[in-house]
């Protein structure tokens, strides 16, 4: 045990003096959450405000007077002399944002209590255009509906046979948890992996390349203890990255305004002791798994550059299951609880939403511990091979 502590102490001192590791394990994770939250809140709000207040240029062909009047305010500009044949170009080049083409019998249909037809030309990639025009048409529709109700002498209920009262039993925490819950573990998993990556490259391949590993093998400490010391150090840096991400999240709440209240409540819940304990019970074996896996892979490389070429594709292998967890309908089940990475992402989603089943959570933690043990065993097998540890 003393040997393992000696190795960890030395490796941590060495690693924490490495600028690359400090950037990937401390600085980047600490900044990731504030930047994401800032992006999600401030940037989105600014964009929406800008789109909402932007004057929309609309062309109206064959529109009745009472529809034209709907667009007579400062947020809209009715553009004349637009030819229907060139509508696509006009929208593409920005001379108009949308065009409304009314059927020739539109007025007649409205007056005979039928549906008046119109076509809306717009570009869905231009945010809010369709929504803002629909609001104007809905105003017109409400006026027509009122007229018809009076004309037919019927009550408004006649036209609304269903009166649905929606009672959503999902708490706002659950709704937001399901919505953003997949994204938060995705960030933790990626940061944990990148946090482990540089120390693994430096403590295994770097030592091999510099020849220090050969010298280390001449001391009366077993290779197993040396490897365990290195693996724990790599995993600790991965965990440090996750801790920094949480610290970043905490700082975001303190210093960023304009965070929606529901979102703020969910993040406040995340910073509770229960969530942090449950998250770290999964992140610790996950970090050891990453450390073992990375050690086993990078020990095969004879240079830092070669090791990087092995590890970079592995990033995608980690990202894919984490991304699957973001897809709607992918839930934590007895089967998905065994799939590494995906299971931690899904379990975190359920914890955030408050819908996690303890038995499934225990399976996730158990499977991660099993995986961590297998990865360390695999790395030990590689580390025991003479051809692997020598240049």
């Amino acid at each position, binding site marked *: 045990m003393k040997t393992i502590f000696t190795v960890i102490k030395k490796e941590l001192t060495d690693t924490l003096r490495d600028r690359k590791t400090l950037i990937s394990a401390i600085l980047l994770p600490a900044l990731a959450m504030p930047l994401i939250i800032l992006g999600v809140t401030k940037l989105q709000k600014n964009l929406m405000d800008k789109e909402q207040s932007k004057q929309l240029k609309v062309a109206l062909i064959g529109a009745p007077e009472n529809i034209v009047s709907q667009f007579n305010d400062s947020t809209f500009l009715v553009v004349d002399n637009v030819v229907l044949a060139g509508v696509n170009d006009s929208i593409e080049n920005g001379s108009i944002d949308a065009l409304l083409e009314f059927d020739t019998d539109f007025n007649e249909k409205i007056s005979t209590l039928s549906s008046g037809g119109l076509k809306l030309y717009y570009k869905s990639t231009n945010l809010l255009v369709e929504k803002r025009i629909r609001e104007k048409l809905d105003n017109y529709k409400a006026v027509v509906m009122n007229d018809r109700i009076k004309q037919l002498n019927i009550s408004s209920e006649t036209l609304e046979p269903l009166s649905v009262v929606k009672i959503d039993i999902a708490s706002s925490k659950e709704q937001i948890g399901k919505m953003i819950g997949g994204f938060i573990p995705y960030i933790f998993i990626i940061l944990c992996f990148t946090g482990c990556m540089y120390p693994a490259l430096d403590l295994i391949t770097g030592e091999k390349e510099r020849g220090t590993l050969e010298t280390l093998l001449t*001391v009366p400490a077993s290779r197993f203890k040396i490897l365990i010391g290195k693996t724990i150090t790599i995993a600790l840096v991965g965990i440090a990255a996750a801790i920094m991400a949480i610290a970043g999240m905490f700082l975001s709440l303190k210093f960023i305004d304009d965070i929606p209240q529901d979102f703020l409540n969910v993040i406040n819940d995340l910073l509770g002791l229960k969530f942090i304990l449950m998250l770290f019970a999964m992140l610790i074996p996950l970090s050891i798994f990453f450390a073992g896996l990375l050690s086993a892979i990078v020990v095969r490389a004879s240079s830092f550059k070669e090791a990087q070429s092995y590890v970079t594709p592995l990033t995608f292998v980690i990202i894919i299951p984490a991304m699957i967890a973001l897809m709607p309908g992918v839930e934590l089940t007895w089967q998905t609880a065994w799939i590494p990475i995906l299971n931690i992402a899904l379990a975190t989603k359920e914890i955030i939403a408050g819908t996690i089943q303890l038995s499934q959570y225990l399976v996730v933690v158990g499977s991660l511990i099993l995986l961590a043990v297998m990865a360390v065993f695999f790395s030990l097998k590689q580390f025991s091979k003479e051809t692997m540890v020598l240049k």
Partner: protein
Amino acid sequence: MINVENITKQYALSKKQRKELQTNSTSVAAVNNVSFICKPGRVFSLLGPNGAGKTSLLRMVSTILKPSSGDIKVDGVSVIDNPQEVRRKIGFLTGSTNLYDRLTPGEIVKYFADLHGMERSLFNERKENLFEQLNINEFSKKRIGQLSTGMKQKVSIARSMIHDPSVVIFDEPTSGLDVITANSIIELIRQCKKDGKTVIFSSHIMSEVDLLCDDLAIIAKGNLIYNDTMDAYRKQSEGKSLTEAFINIVNQNN
């Protein structure tokens, strides 16, 4: 004392290597049935052309590599049966300093002392003596990355000698070093001999061998082709330079 008994080291050949070497054999012998003895208080030199198997042999003595067959006993302890105990007895030094750039000399020496399980008081005493002898104190607080090659080599020596090994292994210790730094290694070898340690070193430089050695072995293509005292080797050279004699022996056995 190092007792090398019929040692053989074979490396497995990959398909690519078999193709390059144009052989069907699945392995190649880097060291082939080699035996010799290195005695305490004497300097034993291992000579041989590049790829002769010197480094493989020294790596087996220092337990980094496992022999395919045969055994090596270091002060009576087998590298196969008890490699950990052997490691307590050896110090290993190469020409490349093999140090950690972000640590200080003090931290490195302490790390290796801890891995050798040294008592704190003994460590402090040894460290003080070594740092004074090697003039490390003046740069002991600087990180290795900021030191010159000569300074690094001094730290490397301190690291190898901190646990006071009875057997010291030098693998081409002066290769690539300037004259002043190389001289500090030569002085160290002399000191080890004076202290009654067993010293084995591999080298390409015949002048160093002439200066330091008591016993000599030459290996070529993994085979031991000469093993005698330095005096006997000088006598056998019969007026030729030591380098010429070395080339003759290697060529005769080719």
